[in-house]
């Protein structure tokens, strides 16, 4: 627990983490204010046309946008840097010449990265929900099947939709951790998952992979679309969870092995 506390203490002190936190907290309200002030609406964006009708549309608009690239970036800011930063600052020798083992340090850093990613996700979700309700009120939400969903049920669906992003987010966290450890570069750790995420999105859009696109880590980010309907379907959620789990294990096992075996030079 002490190691985790220390990692969180250091994360809190880092300017880039503070900036990421501020963006997650202030970004959705600012977006909501801009949309409220505009005469037109982003009609070609999921839930964009309903932003002024119901405050519950804004968090889903933000979610659709965030799942494309913002969430991979946000998680990479912490997870992609948390290991490589020790190479950058030359502090591995300070950390690994203490009483704690490398395995303990790995676990604490991983826990801190996961916790930070979840916090940033929760802050973005909470901020966009509060901003939406404050700007447009809690009128019923028009779902993806075109019918109205009562405010109470819609709020639950919004929260469930955001919660469904947790699993692919953990997959990107694991990918960022692997890149951070393997490359020893913060740039690769932070930028790598973002680029890989965009590449995956591109492949999905081109339809070049067929059903193999289900194995991409970005696909589960859209699984919540099946929830906000009259006839909800959950298959993509379970499939996405399984795919994300495979990515998590596939990234963390080699990441741990590399850190435990590497020479600190």
């Amino acid at each position, binding site marked *: 627990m*002490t*190691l985790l*506390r*220390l990692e969180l*203490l*250091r994360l809190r*002190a*880092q*300017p880039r983490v503070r900036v990421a936190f501020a963006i997650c907290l202030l970004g959705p309200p600012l977006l909501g204010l801009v949309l409220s002030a505009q005469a037109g609406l982003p009609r070609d964006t999921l839930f964009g046309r309903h932003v002024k009708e119901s405050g519950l549309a804004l968090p889903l608009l933000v979610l659709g946008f965030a799942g494309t690239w913002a969430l991979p970036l946000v998680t990479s800011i912490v997870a992609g840097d948390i290991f490589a930063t*020790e190479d950058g*600052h*030359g*502090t*591995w*020798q*300070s*950390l*690994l*010449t*203490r*009483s*704690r083992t490398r395995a303990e340090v790995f676990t604490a850093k991983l826990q801190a990265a996961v916790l930070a990613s979840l916090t940033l996700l929760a802050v973005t979700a909470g901020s966009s929900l509060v901003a939406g309700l404050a700007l447009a009120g809690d009128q019923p939400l028009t779902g993806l099947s075109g019918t109205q969903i009562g405010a109470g049920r819609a709020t639950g669906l919004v929260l469930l939709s955001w919660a469904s992003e947790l699993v692919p987010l953990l997959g990107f966290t694991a990918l960022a951790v692997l890149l951070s450890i393997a490359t020893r570069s913060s740039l690769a750790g932070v930028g790598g998952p973002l680029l890989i995420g965009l590449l995956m999105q591109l492949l999905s859009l081109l339809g070049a992979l067929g059903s193999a696109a289900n194995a991409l880590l970005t696909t589960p980010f859209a699984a919540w679309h099946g929830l906000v309907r009259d006839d909800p379907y959950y298959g993509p959620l379970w499939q996405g969870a399984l795919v994300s789990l495979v990515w998590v294990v596939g990234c963390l096992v080699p990441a741990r092995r590399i850190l435990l*075996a590497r*020479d*600190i*030079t």
Partner: protein
Amino acid sequence: MAVEARGLRKAFGDVTALDGLDLVVAAGSVHGLLGPNGAGKTTLLRVLLGLVSLDEGRCEVDGTVGGFVEAPGSWPYLTGRQNLQVLSAMDDDPGDVGEVLDRVGLADRADTKVGGWSLGMRQRLGIAAGLLRRPQLLVLDEPANGLDPLGARQLRDLIRVLASQGLTVLLCSHDLTEVDAVCSDVTVVSRGRDVWRGPVSQLKARPGRCLLTTSDDARARLLAPVPLDDTEVGLSFVADTAAVDRFVLALANEGVAVRTLEREALPLEQALVELVS
């Protein structure tokens, strides 16, 4: 013994860093590690700190090891005190943060962020981080880097104090004045092997090349204990300090004036160059 290492071998890909190196460091001594760049000194220190695994060999260290290799790392967005508090929390039996800050002369700046510190201050923070482990062996790699002359002198004084308190110090340095001032023993490393080890005084006593000008070079040749070579600026010869002393006295007794007598370099530097070349 504080350190007893035998037959250490380590390669990084095709590059052999340690090639059967032996190192013996007596407990309570200040032991110097000398050698050219790329000799394997830093890899040896990393092995002692547990940062690098050995391909072959046996390395036994008596007690806890603290210290740093090359530039000591620190987290620039934390204060000096916070840096040490983080490390302190990772040890089972750490020293007192305030006390080690005081020992390295950083108590006044401890609550400012390290990002604004000079290289010399970071060096001291590295030493403080090493001391925080309450080590039996303190490993220091070029600790005087970035220190002004006064800071370097204070560092030497600190090393002497630590040694007097029973701490073993392994000092890797290119500053031979520093090594000469604080080390009792040295190990000279070249191409991954130890090529000489023993007291500093013995290393300094190794025969060194001298340049001599006299009032009568012909008679000087007859009195010389070793062969003399002619150079553009006078006579050149290699002899240890005792032989040089005898030669000068003999010249004086025979009425030959010694006009200049100088070694080509500092004795320690000269000895080192001859050992590793």
